[in-house]
C-alpha cells in the first residue's frame, strides 16, 4: 500500500490531536470500505504497542548492579529478609485473590509499559537448582513438586542433547502423560519452585519490579512435523509449596501474577538451533514463591494434534529480578 495514501494522514491526526467525532467518522468510512486498509490500521496500532519493548531490547545489555552475595541454594538456604511467622500471613486479598490475579495479569503489561521509561535496572539473578541440568543424568521425578529446589513433573529426563547449548546435558521432554498432567493435558512440563522471600528486601517500595524467566529450547526433528509449542511460564504465589494441605488447585487459586513466552516450531531445520524465550511478570510484594514451568506441547492456538515427543529439549533456565532505578549506576543522577 502506498505510504503517500492520504488515508494514512488520518492515523497521524489520531496521534496528534484528541479524537473528534468528525475524525472518527472519517476514519470509519475508510476502514469500512477497504479491508486492506483495515489490516494496515491494525499493523499501525500493533507497532505502537510493540515499539517500547523493541526499543528497550535494542539498547544493548542493561547494566548489572553490584553483585549482592547470595549463597547457592544447594549449600544453604538464605535467610528471608523479613521472615513471616507460619499462619500469620497478611491475608488482605482473601477471597479476592483470584480477582486480584486477574487484575495483576492486566496490570503486568501496564507495569511493563510504564517501566520502559526508566533506563536503568538493577538486575539480580535468582538461584535455580540445577538450572543448566549438569548435575546428573537420568529421569526426573514424575510428580508435581511440593517443595523448592527440585525439577520434576511429566516424564522428562536429563540427557545429552544432539546439539549442546552449554555443557553436555539438557532437559529432554519425553511424554505429556505423567502424574502431574491435568486431564486432557496437551504438554510435557517440568516444574521447579523458587523461594522469593530473600529478595523482598530488594523491592523496597518500588512497585515496578519484575521477574524475568528465560529458557533455551531446541526442536531437533530433522524433518518438518506437527508443530510443537515451547513455553516458559512463570507463576507467582503467596502460598508455601511445602505446606502439606496445599493442593495444586489451591496453589492455582493463589496465583498473584504470571508471565509466559512461547514459540511454535515445525522442526526440519537443517541445523537445529536453540531458541531462548524470556517471560516476564510483575513482582508484587506478596509474592513469596515462584513456580517455573518449562513446557513442550501441542500448539493449542492452531488446534494441531499432539506432536511426537522425543526430540525436544530445554536448557539454560535463568530467573532474574529486575528493579528499575531512576539513578544512573555511574553518576547517581537521573539521566
Amino acid at each position, binding site marked *: 500500500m502506498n*505510504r503517500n495514501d492520504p488515508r*494514512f494522514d488520518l*492515523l*497521524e491526526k*489520531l*496521534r*496528534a490531536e484528541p*479524537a473528534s*467525532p468528525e475524525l*472518527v467518522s472519517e476514519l*470509519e468510512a475508510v*476502514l*469500512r470500505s477497504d479491508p486492506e486498509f*483495515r*489490516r*494496515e*490500521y*491494525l*499493523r*499501525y*496500532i*500493533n*507497532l*505502537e*504497542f*510493540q*515499539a*517500547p519493548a*523493541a*526499543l*528497550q*531490547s*535494542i539498547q544493548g545489555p542493561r547494566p548489572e548492579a553490584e553483585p549482592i552475595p547470595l549463597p547457592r541454594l544447594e549449600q544453604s538456604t538464605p535467610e528471608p529478609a523479613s521472615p513471616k511467622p507460619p499462619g500469620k500471613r497478611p491475608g488482605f486479598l482473601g*477471597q*479476592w*485473590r*483470584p*480477582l486480584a*490475579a*486477574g*487484575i495483576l*495479569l*492486566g*496490570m503486568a*503489561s*501496564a507495569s511493563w*509499559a510504564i517501566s*520502559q*521509561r526508566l*533506563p536503568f535496572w538493577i538486575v539480580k539473578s535468582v538461584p535455580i537448582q540445577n538450572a543448566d541440568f549438569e548435575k546428573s543424568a537420568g529421569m526426573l521425578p514424575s510428580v508435581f513438586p511440593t517443595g523448592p529446589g527440585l525439577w520434576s513433573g511429566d516424564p522428562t529426563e536429563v540427557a545429552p542433547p544432539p546439539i549442546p547449548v552449554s555443557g553436555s546435558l539438557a532437559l529432554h521432554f519425553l511424554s505429556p502423560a505423567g502424574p502431574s498432567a491435568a486431564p486432557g493435558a496437551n504438554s510435557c512440563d517440568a516444574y521447579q519452585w523458587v523461594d522469593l522471600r530473600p529478595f523482598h528486601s530488594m523491592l523496597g517500595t518500588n512497585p515496578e519490579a519484575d521477574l524475568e524467566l528465560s529458557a533455551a529450547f531446541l526442536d531437533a526433528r530433522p524433518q518438518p512435523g506437527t508443530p510443537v509449542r515451547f513455553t516458559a511460564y512463570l507463576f507467582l504465589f503467596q502460598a508455601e509449596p511445602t505446606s502439606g494441605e496445599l493442593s495444586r*488447585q*489451591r496453589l*492455582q*487459586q493463589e*496465583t498473584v501474577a*504470571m508471565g*509466559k513466552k512461547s514459540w511454535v516450531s515445525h522442526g526440519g531445520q537443517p541445523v537445529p538451533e536453540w531458541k531462548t524465550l524470556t517471560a516476564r511478570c510483575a513482582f508484587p510484594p506478596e509474592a513469596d514463591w515462584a513456580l517455573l514451568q518449562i513446557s513442550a506441547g501441542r500448539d*493449542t*492456538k492452531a*488446534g494441531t494434534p499432539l506432536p511426537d515427543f522425543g526430540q525436544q529439549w530445554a536448557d539454560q533456565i535463568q530467573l532474574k529480578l529486575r528493579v528499575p532505578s531512576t539513578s544512573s549506576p555511574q553518576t547517581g543522577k537521573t539521566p
Partner: protein
Amino acid sequence: MALPPPPEPTRPEHHAEFLRLYVEVQDSLRIYLASLLFGREETLEASQEVALALWKKFQPGMDSLSFRRWAFGVARMQVLAFRRDKARDRLTFSDDLTLLLGEAVEEHAPQLEAERGALERCLRKLPERQIQILNGFYLSKLKIEALAVQIGLSVAAIYKSLHRTRLQLMDCTRSVLALEELP
C-alpha cells in the same frame, strides 16, 4: 477504599484454566481494544476492565477458539460501556465496523505476532536521529512539546517524523517477514 463485592462464585479451581486461555488472547485483545479506543491510556484501562469482566463471566470447559470468540464479544461490549461511562459515545465506531475490526484482528493475529520480532531488526536500521525521537516518545514518555525542545525541532516536525518512521517501520517489517518466508 472499599472493594466492590466479589464475583460469585470465585471458582478458584478454574482460575489456572482461565489464565492460560486469557494469556493466549491478551495481545490480540489489546490490539482490538486499541483499534476501538485510539488512546494508549484508555486502552490499558479498558484492558483491565475486560480482564475482570471475562473472569467474572468465565465458564470452564471452553477450548481456545471458543474462548477467543467469546472474549472478543465481551471486549466489544466493554468498549461500548466504557465509552458510555465516559460520556464519549460519539467517539465510537459503528457496530458493523467494530465487528469487522474484531474479525480482522483474529484473521491477522499470527502476522501481527510475527511483526513483533521483525520490528527489532527494523529499528536497528534506523538512523540515530530517528531512534532518539522514538526513545524520547516511547521510552522516556516525553510529551511532544518537551521532545521538540530536546531534539531541536518544531512540534509539527516531531509529529511528522514519528508518523513517517512508523510507516517506514511498517514497510520494513513487511519486507523482513516476506524474506523469512522465502524457501
